[in-house]
């Protein structure tokens, strides 16, 4: 289909080509910069701990372990089962503590409360504490990202 008039002149084409290609070149340089400056550290997929460290826990006791750079909380429930939480408040990321006498997790930053199973019961947090899955394999306690059930 032959047009009666050109869509654009040769000068416009060249200017557009120059400007557009330079923009594309700059764009392709932007990507490595972005990839570089955003920190690559992530949460670990799993953490392997020696089970021996956590054998003698009393019911209702909570011990910490390292979950990447966050604190992980390992809790022995009343019925003897072990649960693992990410010990970070779901409100604004402060570290929580377990108050054993009250059987509640407490976040001091804005007075957020969680019950002994990590469910949010008071204060600003709108979701429960994040749970991690727990598997005992021989001598090792393997803690993984996904929450069970």
């Amino acid at each position, binding site marked *: 289909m032959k047009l009666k008039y050109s869509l654009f002149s040769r000068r416009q084409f060249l200017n557009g080509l120059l400007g557009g290609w330079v923009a594309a070149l700059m764009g392709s340089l932007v990507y*490595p910069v972005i990839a570089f*400056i955003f920190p690559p550290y992530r949460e670990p997929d799993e953490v392997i701990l020696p089970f021996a460290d956590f054998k003698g826990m009393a019911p209702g006791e909570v011990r910490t372990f390292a979950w990447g750079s966050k604190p992980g909380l390992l809790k022995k429930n009343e019925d003897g089962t072990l649960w693992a939480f990410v010990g970070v408040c779901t409100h604004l990321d402060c570290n929580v503590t377990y108050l054993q006498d009250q059987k509640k997790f407490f976040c001091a930053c804005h007075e957020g409360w969680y019950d002994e199973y990590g469910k949010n019961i008071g204060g600003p947090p709108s979701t429960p504490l994040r749970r991690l899955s727990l598997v005992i394999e021989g001598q090792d306690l393997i803690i993984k990202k996904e929450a069970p059930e």
Partner: protein
Amino acid sequence: MNIKDIGPGLQNWLDDRFGLSAIMDFMKKKPVPQTRHSIWFYTGSSILLFFAIQVITGFMLILYYNPTLDEANASVGRIMTEVPLGWIIRSVHSWSATFMIAIVFIHMISIWLIKSYRKPREITWLTGVLLLGISLFFGFTGYLLPWDDLSLSATKVGTDIPRSIPVVGAWVTSLLRGGEDVTGDTLTRFFGIHVCILPIFILILLAIHIYLIQKQGMSLPLKEEVAKKEVRNIPFWPNFIYREMIVWLILVGILFTFAIFLPPSLEKQADLMAAAPEGLKPEWYFLFLFQTLKIFPAKILFFHGDTVAVLLILLGFLYIFLLPFIDNKPTEFKGKIITWSGYAFIIYAIIFSVWSLL
């Protein structure tokens, strides 16, 4: 409102407030003479290109670099192994430094040989020589930052050299080192100098240097000026800028190719107690000075060999610095001798650099 009205619309809006159209008019009128020597005009903007690349890659590297004795080497290692494309960014930073200093030398020598430092451009020359000194100091301080054996030893030697200067020598050395020896304090000091102190100075000097060039215009080589011939000019914008862009593109291509295929590696962390490694040598731009110091015997008459060597080097630097004032009669025989001294400097630098590698 059309899409194509956005561009000019924005331009007018900014111009009403900044008055930048005066700059654009100036750039459109600024004449760039086209002579046999005009090819050297490209060196100036090429230096700016590499400096800009250094600033950008420097901004990126500083996000991960840790300037303490325990963590410096490890943090550079993390940049190279854990951070995505970190090794490329570091490689670009390292190679761009080399290219920038090389072009600074070429820039200075080209101006020396065609005597562009004549009146009224003496201050441009003075600021230029200081800019060369700052660029070399950038390279020297940056070299220590990975804190591996080679860079530690090179810094020990480099900061020991001023000690040979009479009277102020020991003081200069301890100022550079932050103490008697090269320690973690030296690293802290060099880091601060490299990322904060020198950038401010270089920006100030660059501003003066570039302002003077715009104000005084491009110089004509001596012959053309003497003959008072009509010289063909082209406007800076857009004619010369398009040509410069071609040069920049080629330089960037070469830089990326070198950076990807010849990236610098990282040795293990420096051991302050270890013996100096074999094959110790500074970066290439210091090789000729290094060799000059090596050839002087330990004692000459009553003086220490290295004192004589250092003083001679300082004298040479002073000669280059004061060149516009020494070369006050450029068309006469004295002027020709000074031109030949420029060629002599090139030959001396190349021969001594190669010699130091043998």
